């Protein structure tokens, strides 16, 4: 493990005494963690431990109640509304329920990310097809998400997450509703992204997924960080 000072210097995401409360109920309490550039980390814990909430705080899906979060130099406590899209472009987000737009084709779902970033139509088409090839979905570009299996939808979701060339992928239970074979395929895609220098943070309670790789694991319980394992 590199010395603490080096880790801090390389930190891409830093959480200082972060708390999140919904009314009187604390979802997260006093969390302090760093995630390095190029790290592959798991956040685990039982249901209700605060895994999803922690991920949401990083991309401002929720506002934090206390503490500070720095993402690639941006202080989330001070960020203004107009800068939020810029923050979110640093992330590729993979949701357990895929969050694909049902009325748009697979192609359009991925193209949307690139269009939102102002990419030219010709470049968008080229890029989308390349991403679909990478996730093995090139022959389904005109399909609507509801006609795809869970594994296929999640592959499209990963292609979408990678479309904007993010620095970090946040995946919330990415294999939660998939059969083992489909789950392996998804995990391989995330490992590929990591191998190319990307940072991956996965929230999961699936121990078998964690066992597949020796990475840093952050354990949460009732909103508190109870242990950090790994290098």
């Amino acid at each position, binding site marked *: 493990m590199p010395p603490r000072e080096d880790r801090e210097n390389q930190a891409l995401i830093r959480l200082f005494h972060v708390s999140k409360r919904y009314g009187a109920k604390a979802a997260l309490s006093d969390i302090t963690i760093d995630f390095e550039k190029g790290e592959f980390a798991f956040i685990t814990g039982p249901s209700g431990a605060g895994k999803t909430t922690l991920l949401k705080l990083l*991309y401002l*899906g929720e506002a934090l109640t206390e503490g500070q979060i720095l993402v690639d130099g941006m202080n989330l406590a001070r960020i203004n509304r*107009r800068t*939020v*899209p*810029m923050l*979110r*472009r640093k992330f590729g*987000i993979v949701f357990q329920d895929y*969050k*694909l*737009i049902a*009325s*748009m084709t697979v192609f359009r779902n991925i193209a*949307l*990310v690139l*269009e*939102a*970033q102002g990419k030219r*139509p010709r470049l968008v088409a080229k890029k989308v097809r390349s991403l679909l090839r990478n996730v093995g979905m090139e022959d389904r570009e005109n399909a609507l998400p509801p006609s795809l299996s869970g594994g296929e939808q999640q592959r499209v979701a990963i292609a*979408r997450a990678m479309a*904007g060339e993010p620095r970090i992928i946040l995946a919330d239970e990415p294999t939660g509703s998939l059969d083992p074979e489909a789950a392996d395929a998804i995990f391989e895609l995330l490992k590929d992204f990591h191998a190319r220098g990307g940072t991956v943070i996965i929230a999961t309670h699936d121990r078998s997924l964690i066992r597949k790789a020796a990475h840093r694991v952050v354990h949460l319980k009732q909103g508190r960080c109870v242990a950090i394992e790994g290098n």
Partner: protein
Amino acid sequence: MKVYFKRAFDDILANVFLTAITVGTIALAILIACAFALFFVNAGHMLNAWEKGVRMMVYLKPHTSEAARLDTRYRLTRIDGVKKVVFVSRQEALARLKQQMPGRAGLLDDLRENPLPDAFEVTVVPGSQAEAVIELIARRISSLPGVDDVEYGKRWLRRFAQLINLFRLAGFAVGGLLFMAAVFIVANTVRLVLYSRREEIEIMRLVGATDRFIKIPFYLEGTILGAVGAVIGLAVLFAGYWTFVSRLQQELGDGAKLIGFFSPSVCLAIVAAGMLVGWLGCLISLKQFMKA
């Protein structure tokens, strides 16, 4: 921009029912407001045309001498607001009457004596057409010696002007209300579209889309629907106008041609107003929705 237009057209096609309601509402509002406006424009033109030609017939007392007639003429020309004074002798008046009653000219031939008086036809200076000014001029003329009566259809003028003013006020009120109603109906329609697509909008936000990227297609959609609604409203109004004028032409002949439709530039302004309605409706909804 092409991307925004594509998304706007995709949305329009995906929400045919809501689109039809929005277009229908804007068309109806434009139709009613423009029907009022068309009436005022034409009534105003008629009033102006009538006022421009305000002529007073100044009838002289019977058996007025030549000298008294010349004196009256001189005095008439000295009155402020009087542009032209033309003498119409009783013989000339009878000849005119015969011309105006071609079918019944024979009746006039049977008259033993010409019953018409000598008169002056007085034309008022343009700019002196306000009702009060005309009345003042008429009063001055009446007070001249040798003048028997002054006639200029003042009651009709007054009533017509009052009616037009009343309708104009009502028209502004109804037009304003219709405009607001159309804006709020469009706002509600857009809100329904936004509500039905809130998940999609949320996903767009999560993948880093700016508010601008999300909003522009909606503004385009609202503006396009506003333009289409206005064109439909105008087309229906034109069809109504055409039917009305055609029928009136059968009754009145060429007189009906005086009733005109809006000029192309006014039509463009109306379409622009429809676009504004669509745009404002979107603005109201999006402001509330994007804050949430």
